[in-house]
Each structure stands twice: as structure tokens, then as C-alpha cells.
């Protein structure tokens, strides 16, 4: 764009273009008044204090809004195989956080990457597949998966039945038996569990064992798989957890015979093992 220079002002000038625009542009010092020259828009001036203040305000409001809009945790779902991992979910059951409690759990969380925003069942599926790939779940062998839900309010989706079905549907091992122990823990239980750095499920198990006079070191309880705990301490987890009326799930028969993933079987309360 060309313009006739009308005024010079500290390295810039006011031009009149032949289509009637009065505009500002940078000028060559040699350009004389009335001379036609290319109109180059001047560089933007540094933001004024007002602009800086406005940006600051917007940023502050933005952060405030962000905090306001950030959904507060709605529920927590802990999965214990050998890795001990807890999902934090929002009201829509989208994952907002993931935490590993033990060494295996922390490693698995780092392998899972960022699952934030993904649905809970997808996260559980990923976790179980990673556990299978890492050898924490094994084809053709018995496995135990504990799933523990904590929700501040009543929510059927976080109920024991729903959680058990979800794990069973996403369970990746085709051969061998699995026992899915689904629990519910209230927020107080979860708070106590966090103090001892255990998942809610393992904390409930610890409390039940204590009540029955069985002492297992916290470090062992945190790091071992439920299956190994059963074997090494001669326990039946389903029986231990049963007396509070929590639901236990396990397959009716071997997966090999069915040729498909197991249906979830809700066991009737199993009588406590006689000592």
C-alpha cells in the first residue's frame, strides 16, 4: 500500500492513501512531506499499564474460573492385583487422577500414562492388560482382583455389584480361575487407609485380619499380591471379607470351558473359615 506522507512524527508518519485512508506507518527519514511512499504499519507499542492490568485480571479470573470449573473428586476406585492402584473419578466417572500405592502400582501408573478424561472402565481395562503384560496376572492360573469403591454419596455405579461386573467384563485373562472381590469403603475408611499408605481394599483387609488376630506387617500387606497373601498366610480372602456382608464374586466354572470371559457370579455369603 502506498500513501502520501502528510506528517512526520518520531520515525513514524501519517499517510493519506489514494483511496482516502489516513493511516500511520514507519517512514524513511529521507521521505519528504507530500512524497508517495510505501505504508509500513508501525511496530506495536509495548503494552500499556492498563493493558497489563487487564491481562493480569483476566488471568486471575481465569484461574479462579478454572478452579471453580475443575470437578471435585466424586468417587475413588482402588484395584489391587499385586499392583495397588487407585482411580479418582468425577461425577461422570471420567478419570481425573491415578495413584499407585506400592512399588508395582507406581510403576504401572507410570506405564499407563495420562488417562485423565478417559472413562473409568477404559482405565480399568488398560490397567488389567498392563498387569497381564507385566506378569502380575497369569494365564491358566488362579488370580484374585480386589476392587474397592469409595463414594461420598450413594451411587449405584460405584456399588460392589457394578464394580465387580466392570472388572469381570474387562478382565483380560482367558484361562484359569479368577476371584473378584468387590468392596465398598466409606470415606472415613479411605482417609485412614491413606494415612497408612494403603489402598482402601488392603486397609479393610488389614483391619479384618487384625480383628481375627492375624498380624501382617504393613509393608508386606502393601507390596504382596492378594493371591500370595492367601497362600503364605493360609487365608481365604473371600471368607475374611464376607462377614461384613460385602459381595464376593468369582467364576462359576473355568473360562476354558466357556470359551469366553467369565460371567460374574455373586456368591452368597461364604461362612467364615473355621480356625
Amino acid at each position, binding site marked *: 500500500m502506498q500513501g*502520501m*506522507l*502528510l*506528517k512526520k512524527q518520531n520515525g513514524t508518519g*501519517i499517510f*493519506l492513501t*489514494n*483511496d*482516502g*485512508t*489516513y*493511516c*500511520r506507518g514507519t517512514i524513511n527519514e529521507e521521505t*519528504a*512531506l*507530500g*512524497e*508517495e511512499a510505501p505504508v509500513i504499519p508501525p511496530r506495536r507499542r509495548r503494552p500499556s499499564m492498563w493493558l497489563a492490568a487487564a491481562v493480569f485480571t483476566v488471568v486471575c479470573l481465569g484461574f479462579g474460573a478454572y478452579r471453580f470449573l475443575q470437578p471435585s473428586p466424586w468417587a475413588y476406585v482402588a484395584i489391587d492385583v499385586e499392583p495397588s492402584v487407585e482411580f479418582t473419578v468425577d461425577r461422570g466417572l471420567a478419570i481425573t487422577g491415578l495413584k499407585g500405592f506400592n512399588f508395582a502400582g507406581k510403576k504401572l501408573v507410570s506405564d499407563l500414562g495420562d488417562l485423565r478424561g478417559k472413562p473409568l472402565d477404559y482405565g480399568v481395562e488398560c490397567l488389567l492388560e498392563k498387569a497381564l503384560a507385566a506378569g502380575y496376572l497369569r494365564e491358566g492360573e488362579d488370580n484374585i482382583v480386589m476392587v474397592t469403591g469409595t463414594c461420598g454419596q450413594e451411587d449405584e455405579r460405584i456399588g460392589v455389584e457394578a464394580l465387580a461386573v466392570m472388572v469381570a467384563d474387562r478382565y483380560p485373562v482367558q484361562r484359569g480361575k479368577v476371584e473378584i472381590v468387590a468392596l465398598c469403603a466409606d470415606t472415613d475408611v479411605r482417609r485412614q487407609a491413606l494415612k497408612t499408605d494403603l489402598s482402601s481394599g488392603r486397609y479393610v483387609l488389614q483391619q479384618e485380619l487384625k480383628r481375627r488376630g492375624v498380624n501382617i506387617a504393613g509393608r508386606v500387606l502393601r507390596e504382596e499380591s492378594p493371591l500370595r497373601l492367601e497362600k503364605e498366610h493360609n487365608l481365604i480372602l473371600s471368607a475374611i471379607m464376607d462377614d461384613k456382608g460385602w459381595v464376593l464374586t468369582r467364576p462359576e466354572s473355568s473360562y476354558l470351558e466357556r470359551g469366553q470371559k467369565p460371567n460374574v457370579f455373586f456368591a452368597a455369603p461364604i461362612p467364615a473359615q473355621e480356625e
Partner: protein
Amino acid sequence: MDGGTLGLLLARAKEGDADARNTLVEAHRSFIFNVVVSSCRRMLQWGRDDELSIGLIAFDEAVTRYEPERNVPFLAFARLVIKSRLANYFRQEVRRLSSGATNISEENLLDDTAAAWTEFLWDRSAQDRAEEIQDYEEALSEFGISLDELVHLSPKHRDSRMALIGAAKALAVENELFQRFGRKERLPVKKVSVKTGLSPKVIEKNRKYLLALAIIFRHPDRFIYLNSYIKR
């Protein structure tokens, strides 16, 4: 006279067409009159004052010497030639009055160095242009308009500008409206609306911009460079 006709007549006049030359001179008698009067700073009359005759001769000379490729509007060049010839005349008159006799003719002297003189005129055109721009800024300030505010007031859309340029031309020929402007009265938006065909809202919004352009179009002899620059 529009630019196309002027260019055509100039070309023909330079090729020796006497009719074209006469047409040009006749068409620009008022221009010549205004330039001479502004230089003499007194009222003049055709047939009585020598200055006007000098102006006519100078205009004719401008037709001869004009070079379109220099990118200077013809009328600006003609104004320079007229002013230059008048300046020579005044110097000559002063010498004649002081010595009591006419010495060497300044005109003859200039004729001897015509090429150098013409080159001087072309160089002088840059200064002439700058003076015109300063004059325009002063004219704007008389109406309380600054170039800085016009930067912000210029319509962004080309169509709007074209419409306002057309309206400014219509406004420029309205003596009464312009006199009211001169008295710094409020712009009679409704009247201007009727004259220009623009809505009162557009006129009110672009009042200063419209006036800034109208000033250019109202004084084609005074703002020759600006007039020739803005698209008609």
C-alpha cells in the same frame, strides 16, 4: 476538467495543436487568476493588471515544459511556473524603480538558461508539495481536526470510504454548508444527508473525516497534489 481530458489536451498541445492549447488556457483562467492573486496578495482585474498577463503566459509556458513522467500534477507544475515568472517580474520591477531604467531582461536571461531553470522548477516541486501539505494541516486545524485523529476516524471498509469521498465532493461545492462550517456551527446533518445521499447516522459518525476530504475537494487550486492523489 477531469484528469483524462487534461492529459489528452496537454499531449495535443505539446504536439503543436493550437486549439488544444487555447482550450487549456481558457479552461484554467480561474486557476491562473487564483494563483496570481495569491502571489500578489491584492485584487486584480483581467486586462488591467500585467500580473495576470504574466500568469497567462507562464501557464502557456507550463504547457510547453510539462513532463508527465515526472509524476507531478500539471496544475502543480503550472502553479510553480506562474509563481516563478511573477517573482522574476517583481524583481525586475524593483530594479527598474530603483535604477530608473530597465536592464537586462530577466526573462531573456532565463531563456538562455531555460534547461537549468526548468530543472530548478522540478526540484522546487518537492518543496511546493511539502508546503501544500503543511497548508492542508493548517486548514484542518481551523476546523478543529488533527491528522492524528483522522487516522482513527478513517472508515475501515473501502466501500464506505468511496461513498464518503463522493459525499465530500458533493459537500465541497455547497457554499452555504461550508460557510457554516467556517463559522464552526454544528454540521446540518439532515441537509448534508439530502445533498450527499448518505444516511444522517453515517454522516454524524464520519463528520470529521467527511469534512477533511471536503476541504481538499473544495480547494482544487490550493491542494493540487492532494486532489490529484485521491481517486476520483
